[in-house]
């Protein structure tokens, strides 16, 4: 490809050129079937997610079928500077028809009799000393059992996972196992017994549930990508019971350095960019401590799919660290459930110590592509895990030739310390964009009148329909016959006067809303529309709440009142950061009589 650069121009072509290329694609039956099955699986999960979102508000626990994406989260996520609600919901694909059960006990194991259920239970030492009667009552840690449902359908496996799901309250949690005992097993193990199932089970359990073993934390962590010459240094402080977090992040990519801060305070998140003195904000509609989860062995299960091979259903519990993309060290459940789920792929190498804390050093790897941090290449890893909490202290990834690719490490850590709650002084920053209410979050938010929103949404749709009908008559005197919308008339006439030729006018556009913003007495709908001819683009509608009227419309891909946008075609897709450009946004608002 790189030797034939002329072919690069074939990319980013327009619709007619795409159609010319379409006839050349040859997909064999197997490939086509694989994509269809994958589409169906994602569709099923997505539909169920919506149902679950509706019933569970902002819960971010859930399950997903995955093949190759899990470990990539930490690397891919680390690349994102702007953290949005979409990121959170993106990793929170919820489980189909989840039913919460009152008891944390596992359901009837006869349902899952495909494999031998867990047998070997290692009991803590018997309490013979009467003084120990007052000790907490711990549960026994069942040796990890890897469930592989070879003869069940996807729906049946979902049902099984579902039956082993329960609801808990994070604020009521107490350590459930005798950590001292299990740590002693690891510390005193001989080389022959160090990798016993129970020792591995303990490490796996702790990583899956690390947040049950501390309430607050502060410290410093680093991330280095040797391959991309990129590094991050993060100071963090979290108080999970107060639902508070603060993070200061400095990044270095080659010669370029950047910094930003995030704050999470119950139902609000702030993103501060000190370098350019801007901030943005997100709101959430719930601060519940309630969450649903599965017992460890049902956090990830696998099953055989006729076409697609082995598939996994994973179910993460809600992350209370509020560190978003950086939670993978303090709460490494994703890494454990994807990388350590199959015990034969890793080993405990030794026991160590880090700043006075007892640790386990483990290593492993796999050569199947779905397991890779770096897509489609075999890899190896090394980790150091705090035995008392399951916190991942360091994590390094190597290629098959032992060349280090990437590492993450905690440099300083204090647990269960009092965290001073600091909130940003946003007075000194200017707003970067608008307060955003993602569609799946604004439901139930009193700040926006949902009836009014529905009315506005209908206006948007009607506007699109009018536009479709009126476009072809825009240069005639009969334009008013086709639309009585003055804004639309104004736009169409202006487009004629300014010789704005829209090469691909929509004919039967339908409008689908992507996000809603509210600011300064205005509600802004951002959405996209498509028509029957393969034409599509963004349309942004601005309503003035006080006058309850449509004030302006931007056709993101077709031009707008503001001629700056005339040349914008379909290169950028839908992107709410469009609104980050203050000068242009102010210009727009000035046009419609709204001042900042």
């Amino acid at each position, binding site marked *: 490809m790189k030797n034939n650069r002329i072919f690069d121009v074939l990319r980013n072509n327009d*619709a007619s050129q*795409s159609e010319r290329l379409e006839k050349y694609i040859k997909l064999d039956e197997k490939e*086509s079937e694989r994509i269809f099955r*994958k589409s169906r699986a994602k569709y099923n999960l997505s539909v169920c997610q919506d149902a679950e979102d509706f019933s569970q508000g902002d819960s971010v626990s859930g399950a997903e079928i995955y093949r190759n994406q899990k470990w990539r989260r930490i690397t891919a996520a680390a690349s994102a500077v702007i953290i949005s609600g979409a990121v959170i919901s993106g990793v929170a694909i919820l489980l189909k028809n989840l039913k919460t059960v009152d008891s944390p006990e596992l359901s009837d194991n006869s349902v899952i009799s495909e494999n031998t259920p867990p047998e070997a239970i290692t009991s803590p030492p018997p309490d013979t000393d009467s003084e120990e009667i007052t000790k907490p009552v711990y549960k026994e840690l069942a040796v990890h059992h890897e469930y592989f449902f070879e003869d069940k359908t996807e729906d049946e496996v979902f049902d099984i996972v579902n039956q082993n799901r329960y609801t808990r309250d994070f604020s009521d949690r107490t350590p459930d196992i005798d950590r001292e005992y299990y740590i002693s097993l690891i510390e005193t193990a001989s080389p022959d017994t160090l990798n016993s199932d129970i020792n591995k089970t303990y490490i796996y359990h702790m990583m899956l549930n690390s947040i049950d073993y501390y309430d607050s934390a502060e410290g410093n962590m680093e991330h280095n990508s040797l391959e991309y010459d990129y590094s991050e240094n993060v100071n963090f402080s979290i108080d999970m019971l107060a639902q508070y977090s603060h993070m200061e992040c400095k990044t270095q990519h080659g010669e370029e350095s950047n910094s930003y801060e995030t704050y999470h305070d119950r139902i609000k998140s702030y993103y501060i960019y000190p370098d350019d003195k801007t901030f943005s904000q997100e709101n959430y509609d719930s601060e519940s401590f309630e969450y649903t989860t599965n017992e460890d062995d049902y956090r990830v299960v696998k099953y055989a799919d006729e076409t697609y091979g082995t598939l996994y259903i994973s179910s993460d519990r809600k992350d209370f660290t509020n560190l978003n993309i950086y939670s993978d060290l303090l709460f490494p459940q994703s890494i454990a459930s994807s990388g350590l789920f199959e015990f034969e792929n890793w080993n405990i190498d030794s026991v160590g110590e880090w700043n006075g804390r007892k640790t386990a050093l483990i290593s492993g790897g796999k050569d199947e592509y779905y397991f890779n941090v770096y897509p489609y290449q075999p890899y190896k890893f090394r980790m150091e895990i705090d035995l008392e909490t399951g916190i991942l202290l360091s994590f390094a990834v190597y290629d098959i030739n032992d060349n280090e690719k990437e590492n993450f490490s905690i440099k300083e850590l204090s647990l269960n310390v009092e965290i001073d709650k600091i909130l940003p002084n946003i007075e000194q920053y200017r707003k970067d964009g608008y307060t955003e209410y993602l569609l799946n979050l604004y439901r139930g938010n009193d700040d926006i009148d949902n009836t009014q929103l529905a009315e506005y949404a209908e206006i948007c749709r009607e506007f699109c329909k009018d536009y479709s009908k009126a476009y072809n008559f825009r240069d005639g005197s009969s334009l008013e016959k086709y639309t009585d919308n003055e804004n639309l008339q104004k736009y169409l006439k202006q487009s004629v006067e300014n010789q704005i030729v829209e090469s691909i006018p929509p004919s039967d556009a339908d409008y689908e809303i992507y996000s809603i913003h509210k600011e300064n007495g205005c509600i802004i709908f951002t959405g996209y529309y498509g028509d029957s001819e393969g034409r599509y683009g963004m349309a942004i509608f601005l309503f003035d709440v006080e006058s309850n009227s449509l004030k302006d419309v931007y056709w993101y891909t077709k031009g707008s009142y503001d001629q700056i946008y005339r040349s*914008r075609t379909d290169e950028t897709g839908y992107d709410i950061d469009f609104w980050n450009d203050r000068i242009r946004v102010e210009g727009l608002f000035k046009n419609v009589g709204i001042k900042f």
Partner: protein
Amino acid sequence: MTHNEYRKLLESDEEKAQRALFDEYIRYVYTIVCNRLSGIGKREDIEDCVSDAFAEIFKNYRTASDSDGNIKGFIGKVADRKAILYFNRLSSKSRYITDMDEDFFNSIKSEEDISADTENKEIRQILLDNIEKLGEPDSSLIIQKYFFGRKSSEIGKALSMSPSLVRMKCTRALKRLKKLLEESGIGGI
């Protein structure tokens, strides 16, 4: 297939309806995705993106209101939107920091950019015309190899040729194409 035809089928058998929609538009969606990702995404990324697009299409048409329109436009829109998201995600791997403002400014075309775009469109047109002039199977070989990023073995399987024959034919087709493009005033291969 129109929206209403799909809706009717959907009422009787969801999977069958989705299968029919998929079979009709898979090549269209795949092409749109390749349009954005070829050269930057791996084959698996393209497949993931295509399946994401279809999942969203299935989901949207599950609840969409009746319409007499053909649904190709909507499908194209969703596919391209997904492809752009994947493109941004895959691009960020090499850049890591995605400064959205910077992206936005970069995406605003200067006059030079617009001029370059127009030029690229013309070049694309000439290139496609000349590739088609090569005739089959050479046109297919070139497009599959350089646009869809297929391996010689895959192309060979689809066109009933050995991989070595595919490579040989590709080399020859490229030479012919180079000559045709030079005649059209374009070099660069």
